[in-house]
């Protein structure tokens, strides 16, 4: 049984690599985006060593399909369900053996497998650090379907909607979970720069507010919003960083956080003793051919997750 009290921050880290891009649309050249290469690139930059990981689990890379799959309008929807279940098993096993899973994506759709794995042990609350709310559903002007009926939706653009039970059955109904992976009132979205309105039950602390009030105040507000004692899963889409800091992501933007601000935010969440898992997504090595950014990403994540530990 996992200790979710004050000693949780001493849990040994297990790095779980989820090398996929299946939640994204093709890149500007019409090819598979490169987020699938991020886990290996970040491991080469020393991520597991810096996190003092006791284990590295590398999941298979799913095939990327350009055409629609049967019965779904989510790109790679069938493949995503299959690999979400594989990821959930790895996350569930890590938590079950008393480790802190740090899932390295991959695109934001890895969130579903992370939450499903955690749900095999307990209900979880979600801190969603992302420059976008990832709530783009059919009917929204930003949904790919608005560009024409032939366009497919992408799970990485709607991961938070799917996690809260909105969208196709294929990606919202999971074995062993009665209802959504996470309830609205157990979600805090931090860092959105789009201003997109979300359902009232979710707390949104947009990037302007986050920067205006500062990381300590925003972190306190986020944690206080979530029921005391509920274990936390922390989703980190690295596009919450300012594009001037990290442009090698699928949808860079500004304003955004600095590396120091993201590290401090992670450290404050970890200091609650409630964090049971973290995922880090959307760094795209194909957009960083000089490998200018992996060292900084690794340093940022390690500083945030190991702060205050012996």
């Amino acid at each position, binding site marked *: 049984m996992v200790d979710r009290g004050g000693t949780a921050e001493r849990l040994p880290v297990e790095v779980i690599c989820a090398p996929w891009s299946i939640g994204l649309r093709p890149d500007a050249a019409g090819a598979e985006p490169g987020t699938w290469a991020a886990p290996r690139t970040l491991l080469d930059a020393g991520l597991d060593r810096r996190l003092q990981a006791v284990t590295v689990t590398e999941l298979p890379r799913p095939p990327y399909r350009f055409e629609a799959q049967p*019965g779904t309008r989510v790109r790679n929807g069938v493949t995503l369900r299959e690999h979400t279940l594989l990821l959930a098993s790895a996350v569930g096993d890590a938590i079950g053996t008393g480790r802190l899973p740090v899932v390295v994506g991959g695109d934001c759709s890895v969130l579903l497998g992370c939450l499903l794995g955690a749900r095999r042990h307990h209900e979880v609350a979600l801190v969603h650090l992302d420059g976008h709310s990832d709530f783009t559903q059919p*009917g929204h002007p930003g949904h790919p379907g608005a560009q024409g*009926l032939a366009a497919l939706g992408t799970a990485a653009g709607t991961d938070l909607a799917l996690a809260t039970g909105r969208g196709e059955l294929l990606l919202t109904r999971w074995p062993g979970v009665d209802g959504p992976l996470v309830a609205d009132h157990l979600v805090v979205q931090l860092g959105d720069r789009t201003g997109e309105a979300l359902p009232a039950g979710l707390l949104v602390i947009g990037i302007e507010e986050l920067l205006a009030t500062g990381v300590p105040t925003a972190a306190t507000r986020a944690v206080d919003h979530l029921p005391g004692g509920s274990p936390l899963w922390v989703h980190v889409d690295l596009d919450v960083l300012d594009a001037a800091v990290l442009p090698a992501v699928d949808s860079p933007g500004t304003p955004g956080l600095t590396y120091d601000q993201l590290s401090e935010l992670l450290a404050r969440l970890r200091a609650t003793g409630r964090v049971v898992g973290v995922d880090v997504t959307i760094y795209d090595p194909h957009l960083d051919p000089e490998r200018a950014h992996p060292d900084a990403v690794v340093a940022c994540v390690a500083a945030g997750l190991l702060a205050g530990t012996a």
Partner: protein
Amino acid sequence: MTPAPVAAHLQLFGQFVGTWETRIAHLGPDGSPVSEVGGEWEFSYGLDGRAVLDVWRVPARTARTAGGDGDDDARREVGLCVRIWDLRLQLWRFTFHSTATTTVLHLYAHGIGADIVMERAEPDRLERWVFHDIRPDTFSWRSEVSRDGGPWRPVQTLTARRTTAT
């Protein structure tokens, strides 16, 4: 012999094995019935106990179709559904083969509470069929559509009464 990992799930649709008399109402935009028709529905195990198959007939073979010109059987909508529990996806997935339209539909299904929800996505809409009020000798079923992320609107309802158990 049904493989054990599949057998644990097969009862979700296996409970319907047998023949059923159906009454189908097509609904207008305001949700009220605009037409009704009787039909038949036969469920059976297939593929060496690995699947549940069903044959859907509307109108029933005992009924005459609207044309009344003696070519009733040609007008009858007859469809075959092959339902398989997908161990890899942990989900029911199936195909519906319509002889009337010659289309093949791909659907997914999951038990949700006491109901069974089947769903498929089209470019502009989600379609779902919900088995509800399921009892040993009766059940109800409704078909709904959500366009462009909008609310679910019912388009068809069905009530079924068991006529044989095998």
